[in-house]
């Protein structure tokens, strides 16, 4: 967070039948339209139906890095929501709830309470108690004085598909709630702040941003198999791809998904598939084929808590090692982990570009919290986006005879040929082959081809050198932090808070995880840091282990202690948890001088 940044965290909580998600979306969409930065997070305790649902929306006048800690305003639609949250409600917070027949004594004295009968408003204004969630959202918006017209538009869009009557009923509920809220605006005054500008921002989920990135990058064939939490990527593309002449095909399993993508890629079309850990496990065989045949393809893994079926709706970062090393034999590949919803868009475009530029498989490592969270991004300038278009071998001017796997000094691939190009016929596949693509097991050929695949990785690492790999902040500190994926921005927010307290921690938060960005990491490790915190959401510290394996020398020479902050409880880190991890270590291992 920037030092003068203002933010407000609202938590909506209630029963799964209360329409909690709609409330959150309505609030978030209204704020985004008005120019606020928005960051949302939701959990479902039960897999499909029943149980407590939480939706947290944080709005701000500057970009947000996390969902925040405890809520400033709690909108509690059932008694349990009050009970669950009361013990941790911060000073000055506000609880908005319907009458429960009796006082909620557990609400601490340092919080204020506003009791409004949402159901009554809904029944009298909309003619149905079902609109109570919209009435409650109206109260909240009225309290904060957010523009009513904009909220009405959002209601229309949210309920349009359910018919005009329902949309009108909900509008009425919203308006009445708004008026009620406006009457009490004095108690919410400290939470009222304007957006920096009035640009309407795009509000989308990580999964939607990945899908939009793929579409923008030119992906025209997608094959996938439904799996939580990745399905929205295929669902969104199923609707959009035919509009641009493409196709989404629901395959019979993840093996087929990737095999189909590889077939389409052989045909010269940009392709992608998306899955979660169980699907990535199935795809490993085909990933090896793409690596061996040197066919570009993008695999998105929206990680969830494993092993096996694990906790399908829960957050984890446990697939890094599988993504980076999973294969029999050794193949060139790139692993990229977006950290924010904006990254989901830009890094997916990058993944598609890199796959085609280097003719390799690229894995995009997203995760559950990132995939379902909605965040605002500035509308992209489509004319400025760099999209890599592969040039295929040209029979008129290309080198002859055509060699699909022509030997090159730097390991870079030469233009490939695709079906339909005369005289460019070749056979490819999973067998070791010579420069023409024909099977060849001669030791000299094998040696050349193994070297070719390794050189490709080196070429990729070189190509990445000049590009921005990550945030790199906080010069001259003895404390350092590295993190990746959805945990990285939470860590950054923690560091920004600590900075305000006079504790500077230098951070490197790479997007590209494989090949490990050597130059950036090496100079980071040589910058004088002595303690390196690595928060990540798995139990075995996968990134830290990879770092140890690849940078043993630098870690030893610079006397750096790696301190992993791990957890694997199914929930994303909060800034407070990372702070706690850092302080735990500092308390036990260092004198106060380290903090300076």
């Amino acid at each position: 967070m920037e030092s003068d940044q203002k933010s407000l965290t609202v938590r909506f909580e209630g029963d799964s039948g209360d329409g909690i998600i709609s409330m959150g979306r309505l609030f978030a969409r209204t704020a985004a339209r008005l120019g606020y930065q928005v960051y949302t997070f939701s959990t479902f305790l039960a897999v499909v139906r029943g149980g407590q649902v939480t939706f947290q929306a944080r709005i701000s006048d500057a970009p947000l890095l996390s969902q925040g800690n405890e809520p400033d305003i709690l909108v509690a639609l059932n008694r349990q929501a009050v009970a669950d949250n009361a013990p941790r409600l911060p000073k000055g917070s506000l609880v908005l709830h319907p009458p429960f027949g009796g006082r909620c004594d557990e609400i601490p004295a340092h919080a204020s309470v506003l009791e409004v009968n949402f159901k009554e408003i809904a029944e009298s204004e909309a003619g149905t108690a079902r609109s109570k969630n919209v009435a409650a959202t109206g109260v909240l918006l009225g309290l904060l004085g957010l523009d009513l017209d904009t909220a009405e538009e959002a209601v229309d869009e949210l309920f349009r598909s359910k018919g005009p009557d329902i949309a009108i009923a909900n509008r009425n509920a919203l308006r009445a709630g708004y008026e009620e809220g406006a009457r009490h605006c004095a108690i919410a005054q400290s939470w009222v702040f304007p957006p920096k500008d009035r640009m309407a921002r795009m509000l989308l989920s990580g999964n939607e941003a990945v899908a939009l990135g793929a579409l923008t990058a030119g992906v025209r064939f997608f094959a996938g198999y439904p799996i939580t939490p990745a399905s929205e990527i295929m669902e969104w593309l199923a609707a959009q791809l035919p509009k641009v002449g493409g196709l989404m095909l629901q395959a019979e399993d993840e093996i087929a998904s990737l095999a189909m993508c590889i077939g389409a890629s052989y045909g010269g079309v940009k392709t992608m598939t998306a899955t979660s850990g169980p699907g990535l496990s199935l795809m490993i065989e085909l990933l090896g084929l793409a690596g061996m045949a040197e066919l570009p393809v993008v695999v998105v893994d929206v990680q969830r808590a494993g092993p096996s079926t694990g906790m399908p709706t829960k957050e984890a970062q446990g697939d890094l090692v599988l993504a980076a090393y999973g294969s029999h034999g050794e193949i060139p590949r790139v692993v990229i982990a977006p950290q924010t919803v904006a990254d989901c868009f830009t890094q997916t475009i990058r993944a598609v570009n890199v796959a085609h530029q280097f003719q390799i498989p690229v894995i995009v490592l997203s995760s559950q919290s990132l995939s379902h969270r909605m965040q605002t991004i500035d509308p992209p300038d489509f004319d400025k986006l760099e999209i890599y278009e592969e040039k295929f071998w040209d029979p008129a001017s290309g080198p002859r005879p055509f060699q699909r796997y022509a030997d090159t000094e730097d390991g870079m691939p030469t233009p490939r040929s695709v079906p339909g190009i005369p005289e460019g016929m070749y056979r490819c596949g999973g067998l070791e082959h010579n420069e023409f693509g024909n099977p060849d097991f001669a030791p000299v050929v094998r040696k050349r081809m193994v070297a070719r695949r390794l050189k490709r990785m080196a070429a990729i690492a070189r190509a990445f050198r000049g590009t921005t790999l990550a945030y790199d902040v906080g010069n001259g500190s003895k404390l350092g932090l590295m993190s990746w994926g959805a945990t990285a921005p939470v860590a950054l927010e923690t560091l920004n808070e600590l900075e305000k307290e006079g504790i500077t921690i230098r951070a490197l938060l790479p997007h590209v995880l494989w090949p490990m960005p050597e130059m950036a990491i090496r100079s980071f490790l040589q910058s004088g840091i002595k303690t390196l915190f690595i928060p990540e959401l798995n139990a075995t510290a996968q990134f830290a282990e990879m770092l140890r394996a690849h940078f043993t020398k630098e870690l030893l020479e610079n006397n750096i202690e790696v301190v992993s902050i791990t957890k694997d409880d199914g929930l994303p880190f909060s800034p407070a948890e990372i702070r706690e991890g850092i302080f735990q270590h500092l308390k036990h291992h260092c004198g106060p001088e380290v903090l300076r």
Partner: protein
Amino acid sequence: MSSTTTMPTSEPSKPSRKTYKGSERATWCAGCGDYSVLAALDRALIAYGRPEEEITIVSGIGCSSRFPFFMNTYGFHSVHGRALAVATGLKLARPEITVIATGGDGDALAIGGNHFFHAMRRNVDLTYILMDNQIYGMTKGQAAPTSELGMKTKSTPYGTFEPPVDPVWAALTMGATFIAQTASHDPNHMAEMFLRGLEHRGMSFINCLSPCVTFNAGMDREYFKAHSRPVPEDHDPTDYDAALRLVREAQREHYFPLGIIHVRHEPTLADRVGEIREKLHTAAQQKNEIEEIVKEFV
């Protein structure tokens, strides 16, 4: 599309005659049934007449899956069992390319069984040539899903315990729109079936009884010849129920019916997608479509 091209009835004699065979010599065992399949496909392609760069042969792993290397077309020798999935992706991405898939019975029906099922029902415009030798050739003689009940192989020293799957029955019940069976001992028939399969718009499945002389010597050309009968003259392949009856009868009487078992004309998957695309396109705004699409998020 119906069969209008006439088949050359003998091996091409003129050396100037175009061939689709590759420069690489086939490396199968002498006498392997797959040589006949290679020769027959070459002849069918000559009659079909598409330039070689517009043809792609996709295979899995196995002796029979070596096919693409022996043809002078585009080729993709993928991994065990995945030929149909790779071929489906290629065909949907590049509908103007003729895509032929080849493989063995293990490749198709054991490891690739899941893909086989769904490829048959999707009606993607592919031609699938299965070389059925009722054994695993490449891995040197283990039981295949087509091996007869009780057949002794390296992996079934006491005979198999499982009844076999009939590829023709499988394809028929799973929804293929062109199904034929042919055998290496009748190369003319085989070339004819391939040509008909290539000309059919939709999923064409052709089961080829193609002996493995090395690991299943008991089931050689003579065996298949003795155990097969041509599809009766009066069989109407467009009658699905008649096709089911024919295959059931053949199973009961232990023979292989050779010929076109079933054919029907249905929109392919690409046709159905094309319809939707057209509808969406007429509905779509003139502006850059992605910029239109993005508006849903604002």
